[in-house]
């Protein structure tokens, strides 16, 4: 009995250590799909000022990787999206592991202290707090693996998403208007080129969740529904045509892309939400098997 508990404790420590190191990595290195897209946008850019901004970004990412320092000073509030197999051995410990990993990485990287307890209004100084980091769960049947997305971005882009519920009479035209209006007001200052996550669902919370999940989908991926994919393309071209450019200072392109995630709706509602992912799209995916062997899905050629 004692031995088993000992093992579990060691496993918890091991997993905490790996995830903590992974968070550190995500803070200074962008995922492959984002790196590739930024390169492509930079190469295509014709506006000389915008070109300089892209060069600045490239130099910054290079320096951040070399010095292993957070590439942007706003390291956000960590958000996790977990798909856990019902037989994954540490399923009961996982919530705690994910929280402790943030604490550990905050001390070691260092990350910024971004956790303020509400109403008592004090910064915990630990970058963790009541309900922070955010952890969103899904359970997978007959599996002993766990798939974890981590996402780190700041108070000026992805955290202030927005959602509303339209009447069916407003239709998908209403969705288009909602998204476009957000781009010229808020998107402008959210550090474009953006990855825009659009969620469609039945209520504010389902739409909001879908819009955040949309940001976990790779840059350049397509919705499997034909109409939704068409909407992604139309919105992408449309927002690019507005011409925001990097930092909202004009440029050929404004986006890394638009990802739509959708679920069913009540006949009398269309829930829609937008999440603006900034250019510094610090997303990571790590998968563990039952023996805690891990695989990193988003970053190539890295070691923890």
């Amino acid at each position, binding site marked *: 009995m004692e031995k088993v508990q000992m093992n579990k404790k060691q496993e918890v420590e091991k997993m905490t250590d790996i995830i903590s190191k992974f968070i550190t990595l995500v803070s200074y290195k962008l995922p492959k799909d984002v790196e590739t897209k930024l390169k492509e946008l930079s190469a295509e850019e014709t506006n000389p*000022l915008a070109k300089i901004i892209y060069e600045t*970004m490239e130099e910054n990412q290079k320096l951040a990787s070399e010095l292993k320092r957070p590439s942007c*000073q706003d390291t956000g509030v960590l958000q996790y999206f977990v798909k856990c197999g019902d037989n994954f051995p540490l399923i009961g410990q996982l919530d705690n592991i994910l929280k402790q990993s943030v604490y550990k990485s905050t001390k070691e990287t260092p990350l910024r202290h971004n956790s303020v307890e509400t109403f008592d209004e004090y910064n915990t100084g630990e970058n963790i707090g009541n309900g922070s980091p955010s952890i969103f769960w899904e359970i997978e049947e007959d599996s002993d693996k766990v798939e974890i997305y981590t996402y780190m971005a700041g108070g000026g882009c992805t955290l202030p998403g927005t959602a509303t519920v339209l009447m069916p009479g407003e*239709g998908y*035209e209403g969705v288009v208007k909602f998204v476009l209006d957000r781009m010229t007001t808020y998107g402008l200052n959210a550090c474009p080129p953006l990855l825009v996550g659009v969620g469609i669902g039945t209520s504010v919370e389902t739409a909001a969740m879908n819009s955040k999940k949309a940001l976990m989908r790779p840059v350049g991926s397509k919705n499997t529904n034909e109409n939704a994919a068409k909407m992604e393309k139309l919105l992408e071209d449309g927002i690019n045509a507005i011409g925001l450019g990097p930092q909202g200072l004009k440029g050929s392109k404004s986006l890394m892309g638009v990802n739509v995630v959708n679920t069913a709706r009540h006949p009398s509602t269309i829930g829609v939400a937008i999440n603006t992912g900034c250019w510094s799209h610090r997303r990571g995916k790590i998968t563990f098997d039952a023996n805690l062997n891990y695989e990193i899905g988003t970053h190539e050629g890295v070691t923890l």
Partner: protein
Amino acid sequence: MRKKVLTTPIKDEDLKDIRTGDLIYLTGTLVTCRDVAHRRLIEKGVPLPVDLKGNAIFHAGPIVRDNGNENYEIVSVGPTTSMRMEKFEKEFIAETGVKVIVGKGGMGKNTEEGCREHKALHVVFPAGNAVLAATKVERIKEVHWKDLGMPESLWVCEVKEFGPLIVSIDTEGSNVFEQNKVEFNKKKEEQYELISKQVGFIN
């Protein structure tokens, strides 16, 4: 687009030919100065402990490493949204004689007026590039108002060719973000008309 290095102390004539959309780099004294410092000076009338005449301020809250013995090092620093300081900036420019304001995103009418009347610039450092910015800080010369906490303290930095900085408001009060906004809104309406015709998925 022209590229130019400005060295503090900056005089009115140094800024005369600089226009919105120009690219500048800054050498000399750059002081971090954001919400509370603006409020203290303008609302509370507390004089600033640093002379900003001819110098530059940075709307930013850095991550600073304390090496002991009053020796500090900037780990990471990047601009915060300038618009939050809009309410105070015109008077701030008048009071302090600051010449360059570095931040993120645009500023409004007040700052335009301040820049025109007192010959100052608002410039944008591309946000999210915090490591690059930190490496352009040669050293921290002084720190004041530490009671405000790390992000809000006045960190007096010596910088070398700090940039790129893109001029968003010039000494004539021309404002690139305000001009762009008109154009963006017009194009947005055009795009709405185009796209909304193609998404009639509800029959």
